[in-house]
């Protein structure tokens, strides 16, 4: 310590101060034994309800996607890979849920979630609002390659009901 008690009296007054101030602090902490509810959540059993706007894993509803690549342009870390080709001639032109015609056939829509920084810029530019942040936060994998999610894969499409915000 840089300050040292000069005399015996100072020494004992400092000792007294230390005991009283520590007792006051102990009184504050003692209240926590019964009077305050615990704030911690026992995670796997009890889950926190996330707010509506919570930004977790990205999910693309490929049935509504018009392959405009605006999300890939807006992405600051370039983690969205999109490929599309012309619709075969004579195919019927489907429409998205908000009435836009799907003129291109989406052949690849992959998001590298290991690269994603969860900023939410891609979801704000999406014209059909098919790219959204889901509330799914448990998607750890053993390798980095497994973090690339192809949203055209049948098993991911099968998750749709579970992942898409209602």
């Amino acid at each position, binding site marked *: 310590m840089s300050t040292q008690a000069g005399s015996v009296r100072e020494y004992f007054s400092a000792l007294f101060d230390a005991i009283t101030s520590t007792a006051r*602090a102990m009184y504050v902490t003692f209240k926590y034994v019964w009077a305050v509810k615990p704030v911690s959540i026992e995670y796997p059993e009890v889950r926190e309800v996330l707010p509506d706007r919570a930004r977790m894993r990205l999910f693309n509803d490929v049935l509504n996607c018009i392959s405009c690549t605006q999300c890939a342009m807006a992405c600051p870390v370039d983690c969205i890979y999109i490929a599309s080709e012309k619709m075969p001639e004579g195919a019927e032109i489907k429409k998205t849920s908000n009435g836009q015609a799907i003129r291109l056939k989406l052949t690849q829509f992959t998001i590298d979630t290991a690269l994603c920084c969860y900023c939410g810029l891609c979801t704000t530019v999406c014209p059909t609002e098919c790219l959204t942040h889901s509330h799914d936060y448990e998607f750890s994998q053993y390798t980095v390659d497994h973090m690339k999610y192809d949203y055209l894969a049948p098993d991911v499409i099968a998750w749709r009901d579970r992942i898409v915000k209602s």
Partner: protein
Amino acid sequence: MQSRWDIGTPERPTINSETEKLKTELLTLNMGPQHPATHGVLRIEIKTDSEIVAHAIPHLGYLHRCMEKHSEHLDYRGVIPFVDRLDYLAAMSMEWTYVAAVEKMLGTEVPRRAELLRVMTAELQRIASHLVAFGTYILDLGPQTVFLYAFEMREKILRMFEEVSGARMLYNYIWVGGVWNDWTDEQLKNVANFCDEMELEAKKYYDLNSSNQVFIKRTAHVGVMTTQDCFDFGATGPVLRGSGFNWDLRKNQPYSLYNEFDFDVCVGTGEIGQVGDCYNRYIVRMNEVIESIKIIRQVLTKLEPGSVMGKVPKIIKLPKGEVYMKHECPRGELGIHLVSEDGGKTPYRLKVKSPCFTHISMIPRVAPGQMIADFVATVGSTDIVLGEVDR
């Protein structure tokens, strides 16, 4: 004449002599890169003479992410998530500084409600940041209870931010031209409740820690940074104010709407300890929490319904020029120097002047002659975030 290279016959080392036994040398000790006192990855190479520090050399660069260079390849909106990651404990303040620089170049008018919400979020963020500074500082010195109390309150702020922006720490909430989402009345009510709660909590912290004699003995008269030292190194924020100099950008060069609010600048008084020591830097932060609550309450009375997003072109192109914007962030003055080419979609150069970098450079000045335990207290009291230092 004796040659320079002729050193003569060397003396036979006397192994058993008394002087040989008592030979002393400085011990090199690496603190870090994973030391809790550094809030990140900072390595301080210290040369100690038994327990007294002789030199301390901070080694930086463990968290370097090329943020400045990377942002030269991003559009102006895309830089915001990267600016978040500068000081991840006060991301709102970082965003605001960058966005204010872009808006100044663009000449955008920000709606009043958005500007008020920015003030409110920045002040809430200041409280959250000071709570981390407070909690972890005391964790460095020994007690662990206070840390949990501080983080419990911080979590309430982060929850409010998560409800409005969608993320706990890296918000991407303040956008060019306004803010992303509006706060609902219910969320604003939560803020008002939080202010009441925080005021009670601040009193509790005083009883728990600030008035504790053991804590005072540990921090008072330790690591004194004089006002002249602060001027020499360019220190700002709580470090400068703790050394007794009254300087706060919110008061001295008011930006945004800060001239409308009534608040005091907290300065270290030296009532306990002496001006410029660890205790005064600490108590400045604790008092600033109270002042931030004052500002938030005034914002809540002034808020009126309205738009939160101004008119901004879809693709932001700035005219040729440069701007330097500085804001009072929780850790000091953050400066953003933005240079743009004519009609460029990306910044030509983005330079960040970080307050923590200047504070870290003050450590070699203060360290010599301290005990190692006091040295930990000194490093902790400057409240460094390495994300901002290394960028």
